[in-house]
């Protein structure tokens, strides 16, 4: 069995405390992961400056090339992970076994991470609006119009408290490396695979190992990373996001409450957008913040809900190795039963209808895990509680709401795909501060253009634009 140890500035640390990563269905131990404590993180962070120093020994362009090489290694080659060599298929099996995601989805997430790594040059060009990257290395430079600009790095490392269940989110911290910012990561207890394999790929591609820390451990490790790294990101619940709201040191990622808004001008042709709506709801087993949890329209909502239910309602819980598997397991059975109990409360409200009721039971309980089959709920008004709900499986509420009331009623929305040609409404949508990523037209919410910032621009988070004057 694989044993994976914490990495402290690139050096494996043989911990005496280990945590077993368990197969979600069989209960078998897949790997042992060495654990650290918060004190060790605190001790190490005194040397954080060395991480950026090691990375600054290379130019950003060199690091971008190394990232491209790392992408190839990550996607195609066996890599040293822990005390063994991990093939691509090992990685996919392991990730699926501990997270409950079907294997083909693990493969898709792997490709997504590789896409970002392979296209790092373009991504950084977009995030920096084309500034020469050596400005980020030196801290200042000429913007190109004879204007001096300065971007001062705010932290030698980016800390990240990573989630258990969503291998797709790792794209968010990858651009830190070519910007010469080290990484201090706390992998999720069930998803250590991507961070470990990615860091291994970076090191094999020639990026200095001393730029990386990987700290599996308990809550104290997460809180120490958050308090000791000047810049960090965390993935958690709406409560976590609320807790860090307004904190300039923390980028908090939580539920997306992503939505599709059908304009009055096109809603009579809703069937044209059915594929896009189904994909937005059900891709990647509906787990991500980028999955659609609400479809809003002023009319035809019952028919829309019926049509989506007919497409996703029959989905079955299949083994993760089945290429047709579309649902991820809840690896913690209580999560499935608890979510189901919350949905029962949602459904008890008048004006709320379960459109998937005729497609068989939704809650599937197994010995060690659980599944929730897709649900489409119709809400006759935006005031229904279910209109503001998001769960970690394909779950969508189709909400009847006049177009004029939509923007103010939808609440915080990570991705809003508005299908309309109504110029006045597009203008209102563009100015709506409760929508983060705005798609105008038929763009599935899960189809992210990585050349756009996601929940904040990482360069603006890590670097401060400040005055820098040079005497003639």
């Amino acid at each position: 069995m694989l044993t994976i140890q914490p990495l402290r500035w690139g050096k494996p640390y043989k911990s005496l405390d280990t945590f077993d990563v368990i197969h979600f269905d069989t209960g078998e131990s897949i790997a042992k992961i060495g654990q650290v404590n918060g004190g060790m993180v605190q001790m190490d962070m005194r040397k954080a400056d060395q991480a950026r120093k090691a990375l600054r020994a290379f130019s950003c362009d060199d690091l971008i090339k190394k990232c491209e090489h790392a992408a190839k290694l990550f996607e195609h080659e066996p890599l040293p992970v822990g005390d063994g060599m991990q093939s691509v298929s090992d990685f996919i099996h392991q990730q699926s076994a501990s997270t409950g995601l079907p294997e083909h989805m693990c493969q898709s997430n792997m490709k997504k991470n590789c896409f970002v790594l392979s296209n790092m040059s373009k991504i950084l060009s977009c995030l920096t609006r084309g500034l020469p990257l050596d400005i980020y290395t030196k801290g200042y430079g000429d913007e190109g119009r004879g204007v001096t600009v300065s971007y001062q790095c705010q932290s030698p490392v980016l800390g990240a408290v990573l989630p258990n269940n969503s291998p797709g989110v790792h794209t968010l911290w990858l651009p830190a490396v070519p910007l010469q910012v080290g990484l201090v990561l706390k992998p999720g207890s069930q998803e250590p695979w991507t961070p470990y394999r990615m860091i291994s790929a970076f090191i094999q591609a020639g990026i200095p190992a001393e730029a990386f820390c990987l700290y599996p451990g308990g809550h104290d490790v997460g809180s120490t990373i958050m308090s000791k790294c000047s810049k960090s990101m965390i993935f958690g619940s709406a409560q976590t996001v609320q807790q860090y709201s307004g904190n300039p040191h923390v980028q908090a990622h939580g539920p997306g409450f992503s939505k599709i808004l059908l304009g009055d001008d096109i809603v009579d042709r809703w069937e044209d957008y059915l594929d896009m709506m189904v994909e937005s709801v059900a891709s990647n087993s509906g787990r991500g913040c980028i999955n659609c949890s609400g479809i809003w329209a002023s009319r035809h909502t019952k028919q829309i809900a019926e049509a989506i239910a007919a497409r996703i309602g029959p989905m079955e819980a299949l083994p993760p190795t089945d290429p047709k598997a579309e649902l991820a397991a809840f690896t913690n059975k209580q999560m499935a039963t608890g979510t189901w109990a919350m949905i029962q409360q949602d459904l008890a409200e008048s004006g709320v209808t379960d459109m998937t009721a005729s497609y068989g039971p939704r809650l599937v309980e197994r010995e060690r895990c659980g599944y929730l089959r897709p649900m489409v709920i119709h809400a006759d008004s935006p005031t229904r509680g279910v209109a503001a709900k998001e769960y970690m499986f394909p779950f969508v509420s189709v909400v009847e709401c006049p177009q004029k009331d939509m923007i103010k009623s939808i609440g915080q929305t990570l991705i809003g795909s508005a299908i309309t040609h109504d110029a006045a409404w597009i203008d209102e949508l563009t100015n709506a501060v409760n929508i983060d990523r705005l798609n105008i037209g038929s763009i599935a919410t899960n189809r992210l253009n990585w050349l756009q910032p996601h929940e904040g621009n990482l360069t603006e988070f890590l670097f401060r634009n400040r005055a820098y004057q040079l005497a003639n």
Partner: protein
Amino acid sequence: MPIMTGTSPAWLASPSDVSEAKQRLDAHTVETVQWHFHESTGSPFWLGKKAELKFDPLKEIKCFDDLKKFPMFEDEWLRGGPVERWIPKGLAGKPTYVFETGGTTGIPKSRVVIDDFRIDYELFSHTLPDEYFPKGANWLMLGPSGPRRLRLAVEHLCQYRGGICFCIDLDPRWVIKLIKKGWMEHLEEYKKHCIDQAITILTANHNIKCMFATPKLLESLAMGLAEKGTTLRECGITGIFSGGTEFTPQWTRFCVEELLEGLPEQSGVYMTPTYGNTLMGLACSRPITDEDDYTIAYYAPQPRAVVEIVDFDDSDKVVEYGKTGRVKLYTMTKEFFVPGFLERDEGERELPFEKYPWDGVSGVRPFHGFASTTTVGVY
């Protein structure tokens, strides 16, 4: 004597030492029972209990194993007054302390003490290496204060060794409340408040060489000093007596290697983990070594107290060496008698050690039966 397979550890106690210790324990048990159940010397509590027993302890307790005839001690009996019912008649009139444990909500458990804390800590003092705990050195007490025995006990330990003890206030009940309320910022500030005081004392030229600290406070203190560019060693600390909350081998390794800058022979700083409570006293640990993967094995101050590791389903049955069970404590002093009490901990049964030729316990952690509902290791 334990049946050994493979190579015996170098520190294993000899069969004759184990046998002698057992004889001493049996004799001490009989003497203690006679004291607590005799009408002229026993406490009102135990004399009252005697009437409920189906046997006569004065006649039928002839060795340690006979204590299993008693029903299990219930710590609930320690809640509320009058605490005088616990004072043996043979000690009536002596100056008496009352020490509390628990009590974040509701009535705390109380134990009356006359001299036990002094005796326990004097015995413990003889286990401390003078090289690292020099006689005459001053101490810092960085642990719970108020109605707890630890603060007075550490102060006595220091005085017994010829030093003066510097203390801070620390109220663990308030710490537990902060955690339960989720007031983590307040918790951090309170911790900082305690650590700031400790740093002030340590850096004020008081010739402090030794200290008591709980593991968490020791870590915080070392971190606080690191932020000021110094270390415990640089502040002059050579001996640390730690306890009060759970130790793990990994934490101990981190503490020794990183906070204390190495094992004593390299760093000049010696840290000894201990296990104890108000009911039992203080159990010492076998010296911790890297070869032994920083295993922490505790040995009770027998015959005044005994630790057994018993089957989870049968508290009269001691588990095999190396096997896991519930920690069962016995206390047998002239002041206090506990004929078997199931602690809130579990651990592995350890072989007798040359210095302490009786059973020990390692891997002490909250009993899995209620670990999730207990707030532990808070300060």
